[in-house]
């Protein structure tokens, strides 16, 4: 056996090689972002505005509801508590407090959803589309010739993407607490961390799988990514508790089930339960309990990573066989 072959079959060498590949691919994302100051403004500050709009929508609804409760008429001297007039001042105060609490919980839901939006967009545009993008700019053949495992390449993209996106995610959370006065009550920080990282691993595993599929789909990939923004925000409950969809008879539960295949759906549901308390919204909008959702997320993470590996190997072979590995703009 030649010395080169012996090195390639050495497990320790291969692990080292792949770890270096992970580091090498994540490096430009982490350092590149820091070297381009305008990136911070565009990626961290501007997207907060879109989230702020949804926060103000809930505050608008809250304000309208509060006005109905506090407006006194001859038929309702203590305002309206739902469909009926409030019985007395205490009932009126209780209804107003409930509106305030619900508005805060919904605003907090938007803030958490906004945090997850950052990761989902990163998965779509910087993971799923990336191999196609690399092909377009001519890097893909270099990656394919390099001796590391392709999963190490995707792993590096994911690690770099998580670090790069964290700034936006953290900005959203900080803005939620400081600007919008959201109150989070974290009872189980360790479970919260477990859910968060299980969600991220499952999300990025999905992104790795998409990366291979996008190589096959070619030019449709960009449009597919664009298509997986608003419809996924909707079906996965990024800006409202997913259980709201279950309230709609017929198509609502179907959309919710379809949306649950995106790990962010159940991840957000669990994170909301862990930060707002399972009794928030009267406990009526949760899909499963936190433990069940964590188990499903771990299962998804494992499944997507395995599928990503197989998809990548299959599509690499297919692309080589059809001679499409380096063909651009198709």
């Amino acid at each position: 056996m030649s010395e080169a072959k012996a090195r390639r079959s050495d497990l320790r060498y291969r692990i080292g090689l792949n770890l270096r590949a992970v580091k090498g691919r994540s490096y430009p994302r982490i350092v590149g972002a820091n070297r381009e100051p305008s990136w911070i403004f565009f990626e961290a500050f501007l997207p907060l505005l879109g989230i702020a709009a949804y926060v103000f929508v809930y505050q608008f609804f809250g304000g309208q509801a509060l006005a109905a409760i506090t407006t006194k008429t001859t038929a309702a001297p203590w305002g309206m508590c739902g469909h009926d007039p409030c019985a007395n001042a205490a009932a009126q105060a209780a209804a107003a407090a409930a509106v305030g609490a619900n508005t805060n919980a919904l605003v907090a839901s938007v803030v958490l959803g906004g945090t997850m939006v950052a990761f989902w967009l990163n998965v779509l545009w910087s993971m799923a589309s990336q191999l196609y993008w690399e092909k377009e700019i001519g890097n893909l053949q270099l990656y394919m010739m390099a001796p590391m495992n392709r999963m190490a390449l995707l792993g590096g993209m994911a690690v770099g993407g998580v670090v790069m996106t964290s700034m936006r995610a953290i900005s959203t959370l900080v803005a939620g607490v400081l600007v919008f006065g959201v109150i989070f009550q974290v009872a189980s920080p360790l479970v919260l961390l477990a859910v968060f990282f299980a969600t991220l691993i499952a999300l990025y595993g999905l992104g790795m799988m998409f990366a291979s599929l996008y190589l096959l789909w070619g030019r449709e990939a960009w449009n597919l990514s664009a298509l997986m923004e608003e419809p996924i925000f909707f079906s996965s409950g990024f800006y409202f508790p997913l259980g709201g969809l279950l309230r709609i008879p017929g198509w609502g539960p179907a959309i919710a089930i379809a949306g649950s295949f995106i790990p962010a759906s159940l991840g957000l549901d669990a994170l909301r339960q862990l930060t707002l308390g399972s009794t928030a919204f009267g406990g009526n909008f949760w899909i499963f309990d936190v433990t069940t959702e964590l188990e499903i997320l771990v299962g998804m993470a494992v499944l997507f990573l395995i599928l990503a590996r197989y998809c990548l190997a299959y599509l690499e072979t297919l692309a080589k066989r059809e001679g499409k590995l380096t063909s651009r703009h198709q």
Partner: protein
Amino acid sequence: MSTYWRTFKTAAWLGWEMDSNWTEPWLFVLYSVIKPVAGAFILVLMYIVFVAIGRPQGDTDAFSYMYVGNSFFIFVATVLFGTFQVIQSDREWYQTIRYIYISPISYYVYILGRAASKIAVAVFAVAITLLFGAMFLGVRLHLALADVPMFLVSTVLGLAVLLAIGICLGGISFLTAKHTHGLAEGIPGLFYVFCGVLFPLSILPSWGQAIGRAIPLTYWFEITRRLIAPTITVNTTLAGFDPLTILFFLIVSSVGFFALSVLIYKVGEYFARKAGKIDMTTSY
């Protein structure tokens, strides 16, 4: 002038082909409708959830206000993105900017042409979203025949302002890295928050209301809502402005923003040429 017109037509055709020829026409139509309708449905669900827990008697005024604003916001998101992404997609994605840029055409007009196809798609998406809202969600729309000319004029002026803002951003993007998605989310987000799209300006703090009143699109949303959904009773804080005054604002703003867009475009182009950034790529 004929060169400008030919450039515009060719760029519009090119934009349309780039947008639509990746798939079958029926799939493209579906694709063009799903995104905005899903965007509207996010708001529908937000409303449903709030009503379920906070206001069982519902609030159709607030819902109609929000829905109409969101429908017309499709123009904002699409036209802005369709304009400022031209430079970045030619530069970073197709890497053809150097060839187009040195050809004997006006690159400014070329950008406008490329955006025209997006406007066509946006018109379709807005119409479908409004129709869906009126037919299935109880959104109260009523455009009187007498108001149609004013509606058309205000829509054209609103689009002109949007195109000019898009070119301003395009001028800036000559100098920045690959920020298409940050810009696509962020700049429309600015208008989403401050222009009374989903909620009236009165919800914002006073400094936010001042910003909103300084943006012409605020008045565009206001006049559009007054014309196509006159029964909405939400207090927008802009009741003091009559429709003709608002139209006047829009005319002045479109002229002002056009001048600004030429200025910013020229300055961005000058510095990009000086720094050798016209055809840079920043693919991390």
